[in-house]
């Protein structure tokens, strides 16, 4: 089958860019990233600049890849990363528009690659727990109910791909921030910093220039890890509790 990729090309950060068409012969079994590889091989052979795109695991677990494909973050497919999209999800003759995530907090570095360090800074602000170091504690010393453990684990599944930000009409990182806060806030080990974590994460999210949530639900609809919208409700609740009920002495600000 033959498709045409219309890819955003941008030489560097801050510069302007434009779409460029790349007709390419593919087979249905090829993954989306393999198609980009094929195009890049041809570009290199012609001594042209290959398309820059992020990838690592190519099995949907690292969170490196991602682009807006035909207006949908990570392309077609339910709960899937871009690397898990295959050509069988398209038809012969399709025009496929590929564009980087767009958000002020995600400046384009080159072509399809954006700088997502803003997400890292949100985690740095409070996405950790303080524990006594030493030998590993006994696994059964701290019983945690199965439903709670499962929920915390579901939130921990966030791979930081940034698709939630990309798909949000407000470029909000609420789903990401909520997942990172709740994976710890729900567990006993996360209680010590629960108050300061909620505040620090939210204030950093705001300061990084992400938008605020207006409950469109776009993020949860495309999240490759199926993080649910109720994560954001949990974050809201934790922040209000932290500010209104939480003890000010634990307040970092």
């Amino acid at each position, binding site marked *: 089958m033959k498709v045409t990729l219309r890819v955003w090309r941008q030489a560097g950060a801050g510069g302007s860019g434009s779409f460029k068409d790349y007709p390419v012969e593919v087979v249905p079994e090829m993954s989306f990233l393999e198609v980009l590889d094929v195009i890049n091989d041809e570009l290199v052979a012609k001594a042209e600049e290959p398309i820059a795109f992020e990838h690592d695991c190519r099995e949907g677990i690292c969170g490196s890849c991602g682009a807006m494909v035909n207006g949908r973050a990570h392309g077609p497919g339910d709960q899937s990363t871009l690397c898990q999209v295959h050509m069988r999800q398209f038809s012969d003759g399709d025009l496929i528009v590929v564009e980087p995530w767009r958000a002020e907090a995600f400046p384009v570095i080159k072509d399809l690659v954006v700088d997502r360090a803003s997400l890292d800074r949100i985690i740095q602000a409070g996405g950790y727990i303080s524990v006594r170091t030493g030998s590993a504690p006994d696994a059964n010393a701290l019983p945690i109910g199965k439903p709670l453990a499962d929920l915390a684990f579901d939130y921990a599944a966030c791979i930081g791909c940034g698709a939630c930000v990309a798909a949000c009409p407000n*470029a909000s990182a609420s789903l990401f921030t909520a997942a990172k806060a709740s994976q710890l806030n729900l567990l006993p080990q996360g209680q010590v910093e629960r108050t300061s974590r909620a505040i620090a994460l939210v204030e950093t999210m705001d300061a990084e220039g992400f*938008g605020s949530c207006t409950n469109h639900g776009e993020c949860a609809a495309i999240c490759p890890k199926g993080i649910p919208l109720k994560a954001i409700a949990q974050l809201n609740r934790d922040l209000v509790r932290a500010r209104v009920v939480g003890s000010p002495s634990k307040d970092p600000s």
Partner: protein
Amino acid sequence: MNAVLTLYRTTIGKKVAMAISGAVYVGWVLFHMLGNLNFHLGPQVLNDYAHKLQDLAPVVWGGRALLLAALVVHVYSAFSLIAHNQKARRTGYQGPMRSQQTNAAAKSMRYGGVALLLFILWHIADLTLGVLGPLHGLVNFYEGAEHGFIRGEVYHDMLLSFGSPISLAIYVGAVAALSLHLFHGVWSAVQTLGFDQASTATLWRSIAAFIAGLVLVGNLSFPLAGFAYALSGVQSQDVITGHGVKYYNARPIAPSSPS
């Protein structure tokens, strides 16, 4: 207080403020609608209800102060969040961007909000201050439109307003906008306040839809009925207190009497 202010500094804090001030308005809208449903019980009942309400001046003015405060908080927070969100994506998608989940109600919140703000001004000018009488007089199917606005004659004043096709269209549009605003707003407020968990998510969606539907049907019922009465030629002497035999009210009326 400090806690509230530092909470308000964050985007989530502003959303919480919008949720709470919005809840004040949901309560008010439902109360206002229930009161106005008296319209269907005739001039006597509606006017009596209105007069009883007016007699509770401290409550009325307390309510108005609360509503004004809630409005200021709601509108200020909305504009400040919109400004923040617009800065979050200065360069939009150059190719297509297809939404997967959102609906017209969610997308129209800010425009519907501005429309409702303008409507509040119109509504106060119309039925509280009563300064739109001459405007309503331009085209009006209500036979008593010539009397203009009469303070205290609530039933008559409503017919005066709903008898005008222009005014009717404004009310119908505003009620539709309000219903749409509540459909997203009620659910969104619950989510923002952090009540919405998996088991209750669909429940709250349904409750929001129910409130939106109730507000739509209830608040459309009196403008439409009023217009229908006006069209069918309801006699003003049957409506205006003291002129009709049917409905008697001891309160004196100020303006001209069509002897």
